[in-house]
């Protein structure tokens, strides 16, 4: 049987293949490299692979192509989401330069690359099968990544993620089956058929599909998994998960609501999603208030931030899509930056707690995710504290950051699209969130505060010692966080929103 795929078809999905191949190379290189070099080789190959992907993706921006009979659409919209995934990949990979054990680094980097492959496929997926393929690739790699740490919470995190995410996938898959039954096609473009409005199968299928999406986006009431999973997973994995998963799922959701619904039923069909987004903005921000762990706090923050992005999408206007992308990009930089700060702090704590016999406590890998680590940071590490302040201000939506402009753009577009009530929820949510973000800022700059001694802490957990490791790759995390900070501020003054995002399907 001759498969009638042209070389153009393969060119369109090359960006998704590069990280996959880079992952394999990392594993092979790890077998060859000496113990001292493992970290450099894995991170070097991973970062190079991600960078090459970024270049290839960028070339496709102005050349939309409909490959594999509408299974994967490259260019335009896809490019933008792919670039966000690549940024998330880069920003998370470099965190392995600061923390994590060398013994596992190759596996972690490879899994993260494969996971990114899944997200890249989701960004361009235009039929139900490709969507599911991308989603499962993304999730399977993440289940393993979540468990890769010597902590009980990591295993809890992995198991919880596996079970709940599989449940969500089941919903999604069932929804897809019903959609297929209703439309007789797996192409998203084929659902733009007015005859489907009368089909109960289509309505049920769309609802199941939306529930699956809401689960993956951790919208209320399907949000309970995300704080636990984020808390247990290793820091770089949490950073990746918080951005790349959201980017991938949002790409699918945007394509679904913009291009795969029969005209005129968006308002009715998607109302539950908008209500869930509104509640998420409140619940996420209220949930943040009591947290003492940065990763949990950012998990709740993520629940609310997805609500903001969905507010932009409500009304399914072209402008709204652009602002959703703008805000997602801003959120990517702010979140990656905040995680980079946490990673640098953890690396710091490691350097300070060399144990007798030159061991290092891996327990301190998570030092930066405890909020107590930030007491007095303004005096000890002024630049680090200033960067963290910028990221937190951005998440709270204060100037001079992209979070401020993103919020006003979302307010404007949702008001314009007739979803002013969502804008009101956005305002309320933001007002609540201020306390949580500013609490960390206050902790950093308050007079007299200081971080707890980590040395004793490390001795108490002496069993967790490891081989001595030099972490000369911490500068990578520094570069990442500086670039994120510059991007967050610069995006305020040069608000580039992609103009070439529609149409989404052919």
């Amino acid at each position: 049987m001759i498969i009638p795929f042209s070389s153009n078809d393969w060119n369109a999905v090359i960006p998704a293949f590069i990280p996959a191949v880079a992952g394999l190379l990392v594993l092979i290189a790890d077998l060859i490299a000496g113990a001292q070099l493992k970290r450099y080789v894995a991170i070097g190959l991973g970062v190079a692979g991600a960078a090459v992907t970024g270049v290839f993706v960028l070339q496709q921006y102005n050349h939309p192509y409909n490959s594999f009979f509408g299974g994967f659409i490259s260019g335009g919209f896809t490019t933008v989401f792919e670039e966000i995934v690549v940024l998330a990949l880069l920003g998370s990979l470099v965190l392995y330069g600061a923390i994590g054990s060398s013994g596992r680094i190759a596996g972690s980097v490879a899994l993260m690359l494969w996971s990114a492959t899944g997200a890249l496929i989701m960004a361009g997926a235009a039929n139900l099968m490709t969507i599911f393929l991308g989603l499962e690739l993304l999730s399977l790699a993440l289940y393993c990544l979540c468990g890769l740490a010597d902590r009980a919470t990591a295993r809890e995190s992995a198991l919880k993620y596996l079970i709940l995410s599989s449940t969500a996938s089941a919903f999604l898959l069932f929804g897809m089956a019903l959609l297929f039954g209703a439309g007789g096609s797996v192409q998203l473009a084929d659902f733009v058929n007015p005859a489907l409005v009368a089909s109960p199968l289509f309505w049920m299928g769309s609802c199941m599909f939306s529930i699956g999406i809401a689960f993956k986006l951790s919208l209320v009431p399907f949000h309970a998994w995300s704080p636990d999973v984020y808390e247990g997973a290793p820091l770089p994995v949490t950073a990746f998960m918080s951005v790349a998963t959201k980017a991938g799922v949002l790409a699918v959701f945007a394509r679904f609501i913009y291009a795969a619904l029969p005209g005129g039923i968006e308002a009715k069909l998607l109302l539950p999603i908008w209500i869930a987004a509104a509640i998420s903005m409140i619940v996420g921000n209220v949930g943040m208030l009591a947290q003492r762990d940065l990763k949990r706090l950012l998990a709740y923050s993520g629940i609310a931030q997805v609500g903001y992005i969905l507010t932009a999408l409500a009304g399914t206007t072209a402008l709204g899509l652009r602002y959703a992308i703008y805000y997602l990009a801003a959120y990517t930089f702010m979140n990656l930056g905040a995680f980079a700060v946490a990673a640098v702090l953890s690396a710091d704590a490691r350097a300070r707690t060399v144990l007798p016999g030159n061991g290092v406590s891996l327990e301190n890998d998570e030092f930066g995710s405890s909020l107590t680590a930030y007491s007095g940071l303004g005096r000890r590490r002024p630049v680090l504290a200033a960067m963290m302040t910028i990221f937190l201000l951005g998440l709270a939506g204060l100037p001079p950051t992209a979070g401020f402009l993103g919020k006003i753009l979302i307010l404007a577009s949702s008001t314009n699209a007739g979803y002013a009530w969502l804008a009101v929820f956005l305002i309320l949510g933001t007002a609540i969130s201020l306390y949580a973000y500013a609490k960390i800022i206050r902790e950093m700059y308050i007079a007299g505060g200081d971080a707890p001694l980590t040395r004793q802490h490390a001795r108490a957990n002496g069993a967790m010692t490891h081989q001595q490791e030099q972490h000369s790759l911490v500068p990578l995390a520094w570069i990442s966080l500086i670039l994120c900070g510059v991007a967050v501020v610069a995006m305020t003054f040069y608000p580039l929103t992609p103009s070439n995002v529609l149409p989404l399907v052919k």
Partner: protein
Amino acid sequence: MLLTLILLPALVAVLLFFMPKNTSGSIGKAVGAIVAAITFVLAIAARNDEIRIHWLSRPFDAAFHFAATPISFWIVIVLTLATFGAILATDERDRRSLIALLLLLESSMLVVFLARDLLVFALGWDLMLLPVFFCLIRWGEHAHTAWRYFIYNFAGGLTLLFATAAFGVIHGSTDIIGSSAHIVGSWAPWIFAGFAFAFLVKTPVWPLHTWMPPTYSGSPPPMVAVVSSVQSKAGLYGFIAIGAAFLPDYMKQYAGVFVVLGAISLVYGAVIALTQNDVKRIVAYSSLSHLGLILIAIFSFNALALQGAIVYIVAHGLFSAALFLLLGYIEQREGTRSLSQLGGLGYANPRLAGALCIAALAALGLPGLGGFVGEIVILTGVYQSGLIWAAVLALIPIVIAAAYMLRLFQGIMNGPEVKGLPQHHDLTWIEGLAVAPLLAALVLIGVQPKMLLNFDTRSFATTVSQLSVTPAPRLRPPSASSGRRGGMRREVVFK
């Protein structure tokens, strides 16, 4: 030149943060004071400058458009003077950081008052909360002060943001301050509500004032001098430059509510000020009272009252900055702010007493000083507009003002000398230099009010004519030369 004016303090502030930790605070002080002096010169030089840098074209046009309006020019002058004084008066631990924050605050407030674009105004509005918040968490007396300040004002900032976004969507552009564009339709009341809430919180006006007394009494004197003298005027400036220009119908419709709120603030502030023991709280509540009077003036829709409001905004900015700086000196010398523990300082410190005397007299409205001009013009205008009850009511707090200001001055400077108070030298020349420009300006306004009353109101004329329920005094007929952009503007001159 405008861009230099706005960016210079911020850049210097960042450089100050990067200075080595062991650099002496005096260098920071000298640098900060020089920068503040330069901004004063630049503000005057850039009076007619205009700068416009494109920012957004969707969903509405927005630009970094800066130019001083006739009102904001005077507020900016007060801002630079207050910042200059505040930096010279800084004597806290970690001086360098506080000076840097003061410069950042100056930059952000320059953005607010020079912005011709509503979105830039909103940006500056949120931006100016940050230096004060950082100051409160670092130097504030209680943790809750910082929260109260930040959460109240951030809530105001958010409603402002919402109103700005809705405004932009409806009008298609936010680059409009200084022009006029009526906003009507089903959204207009909500836009007005959003702006009004933000402005009332910032001013503050009863019952949204509860963040103000702890903030004013609990933060370091240099910061509170700038906040009380200029930041609190942002709300009033917003009512004039945004509320009156774009939403005059709603301003008129709900004028009664605002006049009553202003009247309550006016009386409530004065009465509470009379009962306070903390000297900074006395001035804080007197601010509430004075700003209530300005609010009444703005909402009486009378050109004369509005002119008075502008003079009083400037005068209040000057005397409240001077009062807080001087009370800061006293607190730092004697270690207490309690009126009952102070007394008799005037005999040993004649210069300090003299300076405080001028500031307090200006606050209570002594003729010959800035405060009086504002009060008398406002009262005349309010009376003229037909709000006779408000004009009469406003007389009572003015009498009370004399009582609490004299109580403040006498409690500190006169009376029996309190034994056991540490003896200190009188005002040093640097401390004197900090307040001298403020006091000189007060005297200048007092003897030469025409400078402020007679200013060119071209871009402001539409506002006044929209607001004038009663005919404005001596309106000149429209002349061809009076409009910069069109013939619709009229010149209002008060002689």
